[in-house]
């Protein structure tokens, strides 16, 4: 006799709780029997740590992979990409390049999301000075508390209306081996409310360079109706209208490709625990040549809503996520094949399905349509002659 799903959450957000309640699920405490636990990343660490020896049963599902940090911590992602690149091409260009051209270097403490602890430094010498002052001895610190990673920061971002923006896309992974991932069609652009000028004096103005909504909220110009956000379909319409259809399609194809490659790179080292799924927030920036760059991957994308539209979007995001991760809203059985029927995808589209790709063979390429991202990407071979991961700078 199927009972009701018992749920626990560390994150007290209405977009989550409303979704649980609308399914008639029952809230329980963490120490009771539960079927579904929306954990914070601290909890997942405890649950799967060697000391606790926690064992999940077949009717329990959690929303993180135990070692998601292989993807979401930049230094580890860098490591995995490097390994992956070597596997693919036996190339050896390091990711954190020493650039003497005055390119901005973007320093972000790993493991701290939402724009806290983010600051910008120009010129490598300044970085070295800072490194020395902060008692870390190398560029890439392996300190357990905070590891600062230098990622190349582009100074020719695509500007729209003279404003800088980044792209937030949601990607759901239900299994890493075989890799099965879904892209949420309704991503959005986050615009900087203050004008972008690359002059050095502006560097101190954090609002100019950073787009994380959490920081923008406290900037003077923050607007509560649109929250400085644009839908991806607006972006597509603008780019098609001003740049043309082919380059726009290419941009979106490359974005999908970057995401799939990042997941493939970490798939071999991920603990592909059958009790887990994960919804990532990908932050991507586009340069003025319409090339996308990955900034970072978030394991806990913010579920706070800054506007009414935002609340609706995030509510639907969780709804569609749960429909895929917990089929029919019933007590889960982790032995299932994690292959939901097409009808339940909602606003998700299959981004990459390794099983299907392998059985199908060559590329299955859906037409790009205005307002819709392209669908399944098969085993995409880049035959342009350029090294496979030049986008990984």
């Amino acid at each position, binding site marked *: 006799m199927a009972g009701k799903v018992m749920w626990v959450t560390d994150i007290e957000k209405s977009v989550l709780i409303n979704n649980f309640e609308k399914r008639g699920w029952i809230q329980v405490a963490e120490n009771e029997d539960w079927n579904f636990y929306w954990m914070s990343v601290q909890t997942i660490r405890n649950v799967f740590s060697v000391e606790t020896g926690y064992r999940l049963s077949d009717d329990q599902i959690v929303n993180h992979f135990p070692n998601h940090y292989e993807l979401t911590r930049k230094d580890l992602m860098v490591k995995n990409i490097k390994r992956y690149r070597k596997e693919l091409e036996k190339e050896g260009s390091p990711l954190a390049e020493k650039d003497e051209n005055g390119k901005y270097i973007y320093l972000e403490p790993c493991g701290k999301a939402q724009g806290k602890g983010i600051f910008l430094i120009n010129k490598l010498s300044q970085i070295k000075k800072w490194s020395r002052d902060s008692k870390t001895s190398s560029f890439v610190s392996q300190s357990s508390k905070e590891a600062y990673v230098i990622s190349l920061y582009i100074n020719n971002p695509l500007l729209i209306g*003279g404003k800088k923006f980044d792209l937030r896309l949601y990607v759901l992974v239900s299994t890493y081996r075989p890799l099965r991932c879904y892209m949420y069609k309704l991503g959005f652009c986050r615009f900087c409310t203050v*004008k972008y000028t690359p002059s050095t004096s502006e560097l101190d103005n954090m609002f100019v360079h950073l787009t994380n909504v959490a920081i923008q909220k406290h900037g003077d110009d923050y607007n509560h*109706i649109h929250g400085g956000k*644009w839908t991806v379909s607006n972006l597509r*319409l603008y780019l098609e209208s*001003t740049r043309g259809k082919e380059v726009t399609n290419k941009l979106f194809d490359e974005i999908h490709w970057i995401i799939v490659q990042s997941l493939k790179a970490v798939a071999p080292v991920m603990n592909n625990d059958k009790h887990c799924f994960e919804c990532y927030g990908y932050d991507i920036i586009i340069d003025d040549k319409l090339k996308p760059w990955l900034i970072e991957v978030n394991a806990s994308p913010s579920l706070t809503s800054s506007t009414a*539209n935002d609340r609706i979007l995030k509510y639907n995001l969780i709804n569609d996520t749960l429909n895929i991760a917990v089929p029919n809203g019933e007590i889960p059985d982790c032995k299932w094949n994690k292959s939901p029927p097409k009808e339940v995808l909602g606003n998700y589209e299959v981004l990459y399905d390794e099983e299907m790709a392998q059985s199908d063979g060559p590329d299955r390429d859906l037409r790009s349509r205005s307002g819709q991202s392209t669908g399944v990407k098969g085993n995409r071979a880049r035959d342009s002659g350029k090294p496979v991961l030049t986008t990984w700078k």
Partner: protein
Amino acid sequence: MLDPDSGLSLTIARIVQRLKGSSLHSQLERQARGNWEKRILKSLNSMCTELGIPLAQKRPVNEQKELLNKWNEMGTDEPDLSLFRPVYAPKDFLEVLMNLRNPNYENGEQLSFRNHLGLIQVPLKVKDIPELKEDFSELGLNIGQLGIDDSAQVPPEFFENEHVRVGQKVLAEQDSAAAQQYVRQGCPTALRADLWALILNISNQPEDILYYEQLKSNVIQHDLLVDSLIYKDVKLTASNDDYYFVFEDYLYQVLLCFSRDTSVLEHFTYSSATPPKSYIRGKLGMEEYAVFYPPNGVIPFHGFSMYVAPLCFLYHEPSRLYQIFREMYVRFFFRLHSISSHASGIVSLCLLFETLLQTHLPQLFYHLREIGAQPLRISFKWLVRAFSGYLATDQLLLLWDRILGYNSLEILAVLAAAVFAFRAVNLMEVTSLAAAEAVLADLSTLKVMPLLQIFLFATVT
């Protein structure tokens, strides 16, 4: 044309009657228009007096320098606009239109008009659905359309690919007339900017860029009261819009220049309106000291910036954006906020809308009238703004494709009626104006081409 049975003399009599009627119309029109224009100017002048700000003044040099530096980011400026109010809003204008009257009841052709129960009481001639079907024949059910036949479910080989190919050819040959015909079936997004420029004859020559730079320097040197009105309008409308907030700065750059563009005055020769005049201080009434104010003769109203906003999706160079907007204004938009009997004028559009609704959805029309929700009260703002800010941008652009293609704004009235038809079931159940407004508050999910097609070609009349 001439009906052999009724005889030539009868036809001539009808024509004379019509002319008589129309000259009376134009007399009343002129009066109404004159009153309206006086009212607007009076409002502007009194704001000017109240606030103690001159209509125009030269900017001090340091202010000029500052503005020049900030030219690309005027949106970050936060001037105190609390004391400024829009000179008028669409609903004020509607009140004026409602009070236009024609006392000529004897004309036989007005008979049908006597049964007109809408807000507009001027018996202008408007088209009926058979005539509209003919005029808009390219929107017919058997003809491919962008906005319908390019949806994801339709294979592109069916229509889209060929249509794109034809569009590229039209552009390659720089054929303006062909372009106008072509866009009746919609513009592919990648070709739209160039097609519209071709139809509007905008070529972006060096002298055009120079002209724009000249206007820009006028802005830098002189401060106009209307500048504050423009700021306020942008801050109230486009800055809060999900689609257009991104382009706030471009809107200032276009509209401030627009106010100073005296070439816009030329459109008054074919518009029936007159540009407002103001007098150099101390020389009131002396014609040699009269100047047009603002220099382009157009006083912006609440929502004016929304004429420019959608164009920002197509053009990202300020001078090109400017030229396209200016041409769109002098060809089309000016008709939406001035009183005339032109078929694309706002009065005719309102009447067309009401007539379509009353003729083809009489039950709905009477019901709404009964509950104090005259349909035009709700749709007027859509018409004045050419639906900008009400439709999703991609849909709006498909609609404006057809405005350019047919060189007429009548499609706005048809769409307004089609929207009411689409939501008729819900509207029949409401019992107040507020509830009716609520049913029609959100048009952002509507697909305009299917609505238009169904209303014109697939509704049993």
